């Protein structure tokens, strides 16, 4: 904008100075800003690079951290697609005629995830797996008029904290179901007859639940949490009758990004779709009778329904959903190979622990992650491993397992990486 433009605009408005446009702001609420001066782009870039260099990313560090966020390979095509300005800077597709591309991409996200989960309906995304669970529990309570949710004891403590913040305000209480101390799977005797139950597979300790049909039989509303990559080898939750499915979608081509933004996946049966929170995209037709896409069932949403909406969610994680769409399109049936490599690497990783006399803490089946008990305190172990450039896993002290560690792998680890981990283990533990 040139100075002449500004002058012409002020004249058109009928004021002589920009400050007159703020004449309606009373003096007693005026307040300036105490911030450092603007930074030139060249200085800003250097500053940001310096800050980034104070972090040591995974890559330079050999990482076995997981617990919901994993270092899977991200095909470059995914990042290029998600970097397209048309996806990047658009907003919620309120005007379908101007937004067919984003609408179709999200429709494909819903469709691909529905295929993967073997569920009828997937919404256009939630913020992350934990908030998707919070919303799922509220949805389950609307469906069943229940006011208690049973959750597994083998669950991340941060997920329970988020859940409390979604369930307490709806008057829903949380009961924990213990796990079998040998197998690591859910103790079937603790599963309620009727009511709402949340099950996670693999659970937070990396153990695959193997009695899902029996759990399905017992409860009224079954919510299942999954790792989407594990569905390359494991049975999908629609296959054992889940009513609602939630997932942390980050493994589907989304950077770890220090834990955000992530991708909240939420699926349901068609029967309960009107109780679902969040946006939904539908295939429809235009006035010429040709195929088109649009947001639908908006009367569930806050901008129409206000205080009677199914949720307050407005902005969701659309671009992360585009990443998930692009990821599943690129890998396709190759998801099976990725999941099998995770399985193989986990087996190799277990061997490294066995070589120093440590067996997995639980006898159940595992996917890409398992728990072991350390012969020394976590902090000491972790520091020694870090000295060797290795992030060995997550401390499970907060989950009632002192001196236990959750170790994860992905398809990215090579045999050499895992041997390097084993060598470091030997130095630290033997």
């Amino acid at each position, binding site marked *: 904008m040139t100075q002449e*433009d500004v002058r012409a605009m002020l004249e058109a408005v009928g004021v002589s100075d920009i400050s007159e446009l*703020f004449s309606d*702001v*009373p003096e007693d609420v*005026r307040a300036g*800003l105490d*911030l450092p001066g*603007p930074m030139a782009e060249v200085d*800003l870039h250097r500053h940001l690079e310096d800050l980034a*260099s104070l*972090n040591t*990313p995974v*890559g330079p*560090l050999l990482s076995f951290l997981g617990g*919901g*966020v994993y270092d899977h390979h991200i095909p470059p095509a995914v990042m290029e697609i998600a970097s397209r*300005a*048309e996806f990047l*800077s*658009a907003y*919620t597709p309120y*005007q379908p005629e*101007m*937004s*067919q*591309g984003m609408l179709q*991409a*999200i429709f*494909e996200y819903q469709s691909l995830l*529905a295929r993967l989960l073997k569920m*009828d309906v997937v919404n256009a995304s939630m913020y*992350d797996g934990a*908030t998707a669970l919070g919303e799922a529990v509220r949805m389950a309570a609307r469906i069943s008029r229940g006011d208690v949710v049973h959750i597994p004891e083998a669950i991340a403590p*941060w997920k329970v904290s*988020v859940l409390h*913040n979604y369930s307490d*305000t709806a008057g829903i209480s949380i009961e924990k179901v213990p796990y079998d101390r040998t197998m690591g799977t859910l103790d079937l005797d603790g599963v309620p007859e009727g009511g709402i139950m949340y099950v996670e597979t693999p659970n937070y300790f990396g153990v695959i639940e193997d009695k899902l049909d029996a759990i399905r039989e017992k409860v009224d509303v079954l919510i299942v949490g999954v790792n989407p990559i594990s569905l390359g*080898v*494991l049975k999908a939750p629609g296959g054992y009758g889940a009513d609602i499915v939630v997932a942390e979608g980050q493994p589907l081509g989304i950077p*770890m*990004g*220090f834990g*955000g933004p992530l991708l909240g996946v939420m699926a349901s049966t068609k029967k309960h779709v009107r109780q679902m929170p969040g946006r*939904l995209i*539908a295939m429809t037709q235009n006035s010429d009778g*040709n195929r*088109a896409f*649009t947001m*639908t*069932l908006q009367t569930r949403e*806050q901008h129409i329904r206000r205080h009677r*909406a199914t*949720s*307050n969610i407005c902005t969701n994680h*659309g671009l992360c959903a585009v990443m998930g769409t692009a990821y599943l399109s690129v890998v*396709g049936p190759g998801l099976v190979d990725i999941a099998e490599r995770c*399985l193989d690497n986990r*087996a190799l990783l277990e061997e490294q622990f066995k070589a120093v006399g440590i067996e997995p803490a639980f006898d159940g089946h595992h996917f890409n992650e398992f728990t072991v008990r350390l012969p020394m305190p976590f902090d000491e172990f972790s520091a020694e491993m*870090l000295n060797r450039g290795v*992030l060995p896993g997550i401390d499970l002290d907060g989950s009632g397992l002192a001196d236990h560690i959750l170790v994860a792998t992905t398809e990215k680890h090579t045999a050499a990486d895992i041997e390097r981990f084993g060598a470091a283990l030997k130095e630290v533990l033997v």
Partner: protein
Amino acid sequence: MTGQYRMARYDEGTVFEIGGESHVRSATGHIPDGLKGTVDLPDLTEAEVMRHYVRLSQMNHCVESGFYPLGSCTMKHNPRSSVWAATLPGFASIHPEQPFSTVQGALGLMYELERMLAEIGGMKAVTLQPAAGAQGEYTGLLLIKAYHEANGESRDQVIVPDTAHGTNPATAAMAGYDVIEVPSADDGTVDLDALKEALSDRTAALMLTNPNTLGIFEGRVTEIAKAVHESGALLYYDGANLNAIMGITKPGAMGFDVVHFNLHKTFGTPHGGGGPGSGPVGVVERLEPFLPVPRITRENDMFVLSDDVPASIGKVQSFYGNFLVLVRAYAFIKSHGSSLQEVSEMAVLNANYLVARLNGVLPMPYGKLRKHEFVLSGEPLKEKGVKTLDVAKRLGDMGFHAPTIYFPHIVEEAMMIEPTETEDKATLDAFADALTCIVSEDPEGLKCAPTEVEARVDEVFAAKNMWLTWDLAQQD
């Protein structure tokens, strides 16, 4: 200029059609048969995937392709320095459970961003955890609830003006409150008498945005704050409209106790076709003890995350918020620094210039001076049988995204227009010319708009058939 705009339109099939027959596969070993599943995903080459999504992207309007004046959404240009910063491996490839010593840059950035947002909001402390504006609102109300409960009070009502964003009442209801809506006064601002009437010892908070959704500054905000506080309630600032006031005033200076910021609006981070956004929350001192964990603190020159906050409400996200969005907002604020006031000044100038240009084209109820956005009424067009919806669709033909329409509800046939500071005069003039032209166009033509982009999409057909996935569509 009518008809010059062309958005790409391909007869682009879905991934299920491009990939041909899908290819059902299952694992070969290592998993017991009872646990084993099958994968049924389309099989595309990378070449097919790239062509497909590039074509889809070309069928989508964005800020780079043209004006995007969605009111209350602040669709400004997203600076590419910010976008670039989030791709640095030192930010993008760190795991949330890494030891603090390996993420000092990330924690330092977040610490500084908290301080900068506290300064902009006039607040004591900030949490960066909420993922979006609506979640910021929810977090804010959880803080307010915790505060009242800590004082032994169980207040069960939240008051919102009738012009409030839809998220305000939805959030209040979700947080377990009864929602009390107060009508606006004749000048479009809060009716102070109606507010005082509604306030009681049951009121937990008043949720307000200032300027309000008509773009009008609530000049009696100090009196509003006084009345709210006298009733023992707290005052919540919906930061959706913060782009209007930076460097002029602050929520803290106006008497607000809790503020949420929309980093994807005010601080130029990309909207991503519907997110991810970021909705940090700032609070005054008396609410600080309740902020979500972990808190970023500094111990011996080292940034650490602390869960040791006894009165905290706990967590609202898996980890620390949408970190890569925080990086972008940090870059935006650093690049403007003490000149942020110019952002607001230009946003307000652009809005008022458009108001002047559109004077006499369509009425603008509730007076003249606006902040960053304004609301026109399409009511006079009704006698020709033309609705605001038709005008919105027709704007698409001319290369403009529609304004926010039918909101706020107190304006009939509303068109809520927010130009932002990053549009130039030529663009504003072109938009004003387009709207001026449209209102005098043939009504029958308008009802058939758009014609230059996708033909009008049938939303009734969508709701009736509920083809929410490819497989559901194939079943019918």
